[in-house]
């Protein structure tokens, strides 16, 4: 039975507290598009994506109207393109990038992800070609996202790939320096990358996935914050309960939208990613939740503990609300995409070292952090290695999305616009890790990887 309080609560969540579905992401396998002739492969890729996803945007818009809930993005993720590149020796992988962009334009989606390679244990055919083409691919496209998995709890960390990715991140920023260094904002370096993640820039369609699938990413930091501010004197146990109840409601909505989309598109429903994904809009910030829990400013002592509580409660509340949970699931802590994080970084409370500690207990990793343009490739690699080590040892997904602000220094600001927001250049440690990074090789997997 419907009651008035529930109806008004839902409407308030949507209207005043920025509740939305962040994304409906269609995962499409491109394994049947592999061809030794790259032009033929591109043709197959374009026709498969545009036939599978032709109704994705219109169905998304119809569901928005039916339920009165905004669906911010419609996206596509595809099989890691390195697997297609493997078959066409000597061809330029950027052709695939341009094809994916053309397909994204034709379908009207906001992002297309999967310009990816999985190299946690080493490079196979196509991987190096794809990685080396990333700076150009991200520069000549606008909606394409790229991700590279360089480590896992099972395989260890591929330090050759870590070294290379430091250089690629820097180069991606250099070639897009005239466009606020937007290149690396669309590039994620993962440890333990999930195969069913609907969120960008790290989404790709894993090889264990079905031919086509619908995954949904929910949002709703504003709703959690609004629920918490009503209870300034509640104990931590009560805070955890409030978060769980709110996460349940948010996730149920994701489940409803996902199953409806799956039915309308006649595509199997994969997972709901129970994430608290912030946007730069006021009232949609994860940092502000931590402040509502009782911190004067995000980044101060106590932030890691508050985030651990939040992350865990979101999962516990959400998991019962959905038939299948997957992706990244937890609280995201991107800096440039979160009004509270931006403020905390600007006023000097939030530093990259604290963010690193927070990534041990949040859903992903060091995300959308703007660093000085004169950062060395070795330092970027070392930051990637640190983050991958946290993921590898703790059996969790971690990732790095750093944006070197070419020609800018600490205190300056990069403006990306849209969901990517804007970020102040944050200070980094400048002592050299070059010798460590230049050694190459692979960090062995931790003892607890041997579970068989």
């Amino acid at each position, binding site marked *: 039975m*419907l*009651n*008035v309080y*529930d*109806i*008004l*609560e*839902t*409407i308030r969540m949507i*209207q005043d507290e920025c509740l939305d579905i962040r994304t409906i992401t269609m995962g499409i396998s491109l394994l049947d598009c592999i061809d030794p002739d790259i032009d033929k492969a591109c043709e197959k890729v374009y026709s498969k994506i545009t036939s599978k996803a032709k109704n994705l945007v219109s169905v998304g818009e*119809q569901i928005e*109207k*039916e*339920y*009165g*809930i905004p669906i911010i993005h419609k996206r596509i993720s595809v099989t890691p393109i390195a697997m297609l590149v493997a078959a066409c020796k000597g061809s330029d992988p950027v052709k695939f990038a341009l094809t994916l962009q053309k397909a994204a334009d034709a379908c009207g989606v906001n992002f297309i992800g999967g310009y990816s390679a999985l190299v946690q244990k080493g490079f196979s055919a196509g991987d190096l070609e794809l990685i080396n083409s990333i700076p150009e691919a991200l520069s000549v496209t606008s909606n394409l996202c790229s991700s590279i998995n360089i480590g896992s709890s099972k395989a260890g960390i591929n330090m050759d790939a870590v070294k290379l990715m430091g250089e690629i991140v820097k180069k991606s920023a250099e070639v897009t320096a005239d466009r606020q260094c937007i290149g690396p904002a669309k590039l994620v370096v993962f440890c333990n990358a999930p195969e069913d993640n609907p969120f960008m820039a790290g989404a790709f369609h894993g090889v264990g996935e079905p031919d086509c699938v619908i995954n949904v990413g929910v949002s709703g930091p504003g709703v959690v914050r609004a629920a918490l501010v009503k209870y300034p004197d509640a104990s931590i146990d009560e805070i955890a309960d409030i978060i769980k109840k709110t996460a349940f*409601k948010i996730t*149920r*909505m994701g*489940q*409803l939208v996902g199953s409806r989309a799956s039915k309308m598109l006649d595509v199997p429903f994969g997972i709901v990613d129970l994430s608290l994904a912030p946007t730069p809009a006021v009232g949609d910030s994860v940092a502000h939740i931590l402040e509502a829990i009782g911190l004067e400013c995000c980044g101060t002592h106590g932030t890691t503990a508050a985030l651990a509580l939040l992350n865990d409660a979101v999962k516990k509340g959400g998991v019962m609300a959905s038939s299948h949970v997957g992706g990244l699931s937890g609280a995201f802590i991107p800096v440039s995409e979160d009004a509270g994080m931006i403020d905390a970084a600007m006023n000097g409370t939030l530093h990259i070292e604290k963010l690193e500690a927070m990534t041990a207990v949040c859903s992903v990793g060091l995300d959308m952090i703007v660093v000085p343009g004169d950062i060395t490739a070795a330092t970027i690699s070392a930051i990637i290695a640190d983050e991958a080590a946290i993921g590898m040892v703790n059996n969790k997904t971690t990732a790095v999305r750093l944006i070197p602000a070419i020609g800018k220094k600490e205190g300056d600001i990069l403006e990306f616009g849209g969901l990517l927001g804007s970020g102040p250049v944050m200070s980094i440690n400048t002592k050299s890790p070059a010798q460590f990074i230049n050694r190459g090789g692979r960090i062995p997997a931790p003892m607890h990887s041997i579970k068989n």
Partner: protein
Amino acid sequence: MKAVITVIGKDNVGILHKVSGICAEYHANVIEVTQSVLQDMFAMIMLVDISDINADFSQIVDKMNALGDKLGLSIHTMHEDIFNSMHNI
């Protein structure tokens, strides 16, 4: 299949008439109405049956939104499933 229509805003002559008029136009049967006027604020929640509507549900949503814009009211027209799934286990 049912939908929930909520109307909130400054009280005026004929709000109920105009909203229910759109329902009638599309053959959506009004099942239940709760309404209150506090000082000059009007708040109404209407439950309507949309099983036999003669157009796409999104057309009703558009029409209600247009009415809300015209009268300066906040009108939400939503399928009941969203409330059922969010608030019931």
